[in-house]
């Protein structure tokens, strides 16, 4: 059983604040939830909305249809009333047919004294309609506003209570899912990445701001004092990646955050990290392109770019987390393997995952630093020793070893060389790492795949919608007969891949559909290229919005 609540209004009307209130209050009540946002690229005006989907079991993805719409503005009503289910309810800040009127600002002023408390009124109304005890919300308001003093707490509480009271006539009209037995942890994608990096021993983050990656940078900054991390706003993206290169050369685990256009400027610096064999970690939160594209929307369009960016040939890792738990774990893993193999690693995510907020098992917040793989060395140290694994013993400057690193092709001791046989040895050494990287590649996660005739293949944040689609198809057989046997494979590591393992996981199926947020089936083409897949269909989405389960079900049945 689950309920989808949508709060919509202009930018600047507190849509996000009201949404955040609900998220926190619901997690405190032990509900499962997932919130997602749709916003326009502007600071005021436009039409933004915030969805909170709550359930009595795990909620994996956003829903396109709405049970309860809180429309703070006329545009929100006009544009979104069709998304509301026939048995749903609309609470509107005005008079309109088929809606329940509630003047959020007016009520706030009346009982709380201030318009900014309109979001507490809205949250109270949601509690009222769903038949939840508003005391739970009031408790939560008390804890967040405690610092601001008793007066603010009391005013917000009054707003919430009044919001709920005014819904008395509609109370319980929508039955909310049953609360759990204790509070649940909830986290947003950006914080999950940041916490993963911070607990792994990150010491320096550099970036030039760009949506949607900035959320991650802000989150790291939020943890910086606790974990002793330096957050540096670089003068531009080129500086950011070169700062990371310098910092990792000197021995500090370092990472940058960026999005498509910013990363486009970093290709040469990435190549430098490849040449100098630096454990540079790059978080790239995708948004649709080309160029500035849709700044506040989502997509999975940069996979091929990230896999091939940089001139010359060098190994790299690309991880694409599917949910907040993976965002935490794969970020830690990215830092670990970047250091183990001394080569760049990407966390390739997107606006949808970075901004979503979901309940999950508690994330370990105690520092558990990764191994930097440093050796103590003396005067005869050479940085680029030729080894069978391609991995050379790594020392950093400041100790007894002298560490020489050059972007030109270099000898084992790091000096420029134009000896072409050394060149070949060095390319081979760097590329030799790929054997180890492929062998240790994380296998895809299978879900109800064993007996599946139809296999859905996805990567990154498409995970939740895909998994829910599998459940819908298997358990409800929705829209199809006979009921298809559907399963899925999700890739959290998208590069490099172990072709044999992938081929085995895909196996023989009647139908393989690769589902991804781009127009050209980029991941499908990667799978074909490495020989892991021959025949497949692709399901493409590039309208700037995340997949939903119903959309996948619909398109599977009708395409």
């Amino acid at each position, binding site marked *: 059983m689950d309920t989808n609540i949508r709060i919509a209004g202009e930018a600047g009307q507190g849509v996000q604040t009201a949404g955040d209130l609900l998220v926190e209050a619901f997690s405190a009540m032990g509900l499962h939830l997932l919130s997602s946002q749709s916003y326009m690229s502007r600071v005021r005006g436009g039409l933004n909305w915030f969805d909170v989907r709550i359930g009595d079991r795990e909620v994996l993805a956003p829903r396109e249809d709405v049970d309860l719409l809180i429309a703070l503005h006329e545009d929100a009503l006009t544009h979104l009333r069709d998304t509301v289910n026939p048995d749903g309810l609309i609470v509107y800040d005005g008079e309109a047919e088929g809606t329940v009127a509630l003047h959020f600002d007016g009520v706030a002023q009346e009982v709380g004294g201030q318009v900014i408390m309109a979001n507490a009124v809205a949250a109270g109304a949601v509690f009222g309609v769903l038949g939840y005890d508003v005391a739970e919300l009031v408790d939560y308001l008390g804890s967040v506003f405690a610092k601001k003093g008793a007066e603010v707490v009391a005013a917000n509480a009054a707003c919430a209570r009044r919001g709920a009271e005014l819904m008395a006539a509609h109370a319980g009209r929508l039955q909310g899912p049953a609360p759990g037995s204790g509070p649940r942890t909830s986290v947003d994608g950006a914080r999950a990445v940041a916490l993963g990096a911070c607990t792994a021993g990150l010491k320096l983050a550099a970036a030039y701001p760009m949506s949607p990656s900035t959320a991650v940078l802000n989150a790291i900054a939020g943890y*910086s004092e606790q974990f002793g991390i330096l957050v540096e706003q670089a003068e531009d993206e080129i500086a950011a990646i070169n*700062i*990371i290169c*310098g910092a990792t*050369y*000197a021995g500090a685990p370092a990472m940058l955050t960026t999005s498509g256009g910013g990363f486009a400027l970093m290709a040469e610096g990435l190549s430098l990290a490849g040449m100098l064999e630096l454990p540079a970690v790059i978080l790239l939160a995708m948004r649709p392109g080309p160029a500035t594209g849709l700044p506040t929307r989502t997509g999975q369009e940069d996979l091929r770019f990230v896999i091939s960016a940089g001139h010359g040939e060098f190994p790299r890792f690309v991880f694409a987390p599917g949910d907040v738990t993976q965002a935490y774990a794969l970020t830690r893993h990215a830092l670990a393997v970047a250091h183990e193999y001394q080569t760049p690693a990407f966390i390739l995510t997107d606006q949808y995952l970075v901004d979503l907020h979901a309940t999950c098992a508690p994330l370990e917040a105690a520092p558990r630093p990764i191994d930097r793989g440093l050796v103590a060395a003396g005067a005869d140290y050479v940085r680029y020793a030729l080894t069978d694994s391609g991995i050379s013993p790594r020392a950093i400057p400041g100790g007894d070893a*002298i560490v020489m690193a050059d972007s030109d092709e270099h000898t084992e001791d790091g000096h420029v060389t134009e000896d072409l046989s050394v060149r070949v040895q060095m390319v081979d050494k760097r590329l030799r790492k790929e054997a180890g990287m492929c062998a240790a590649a994380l296998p895809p996660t299978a879900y109800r795949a064993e007996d599946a005739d139809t296999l859905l293949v996805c990567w990154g944040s498409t995970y939740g919608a895909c998994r829910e689609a599998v459940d819908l198809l298997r358990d409800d057989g929705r829209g199809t007969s006979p009921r298809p046997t559907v399963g899925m494979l999700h890739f959290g590591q998208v590069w490099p891949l172990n072709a044999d393992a992938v081929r085995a996981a895909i196996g023989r199926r009647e139908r393989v559909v690769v589902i991804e947020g781009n127009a050209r089936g980029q991941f499908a083409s990667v799978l074909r290229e490495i020989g892991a897949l021959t025949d497949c269909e692709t399901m493409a989405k590039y309208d700037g919005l995340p997949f939903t389960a119903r959309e996948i079900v619909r398109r599977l049945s009708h395409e």
Partner: protein
Amino acid sequence: MSDTQMWGAGLRSDGPVKPAWCPGCGNYAIVKAVDRALDEAGLDRRRVVLVSGIGQAAKLPHYVSRPVNFFNGLHGRAVPAATGIKLANHTLEVIITSGDGDMYGEGGNHLLHAIRRNIGLKCFVHNNQIYGLTKGQASPTSDAGTHTKLQAYGVAAQPLNPLALAIAEGASFVARSFTGLPDHLPQTMVAALQQPGFALLDILQPCITFNKLNTFKWYQDRVRPLGDDYDPTDRLRALETALVWGDEIPVGVLYRADRPSYESKLPVLASGPLAAP
């Protein structure tokens, strides 16, 4: 004097690295001066990192007499790479040694922001007023009217004045020297090394192959060391001095200010380097 004699002392004695510079190039004097300055400043080379971009000048770290840590990065990007190193381990002495194209052209934006931060990097710019490695195109400091293969009608833009720019921006140490001043150059480097924040040292360096205008003699005839009565803490006077370029070219420490370094203002670095175990 043979070329080897001329720059022999500046070569690594223990390694295979032979300079890829033209015999007679001003860069040889700079590598010698760097060697001397490191020794005179009493620096342990294990605690020094030389950072460079790309260009003839940027090859310097390979040629010092005894090995030193170095990071020879990308064209124009010595400053951010050095910034990363300094932030990761602020106990290291991080010295940038690179060309005018590298620092004032491709890397111009980074230079501005290093000055703004006042991060403790020492930046030695080999200013030969030309692009050497790419064979003789104009650099941001080429005199107006300079003819090259590329600037066939002469350089139409006016030259960038790095010293005036740095002083105007409030850099904490701004100096100029010349490769023809065998004591002045290392001494000025040592002075730069003693400054806590960002130090810019512009070094006039003849490129005998591509710059036929600003030759060794051309510089020698014009260079005038600042007198003992010169007060480097007077910013307006410094700016005035920086604007002098022509028959006379002042050299020495033009400007110096007491500004705390960037790294000293970052609380997270107070407990030790980020790169510590």
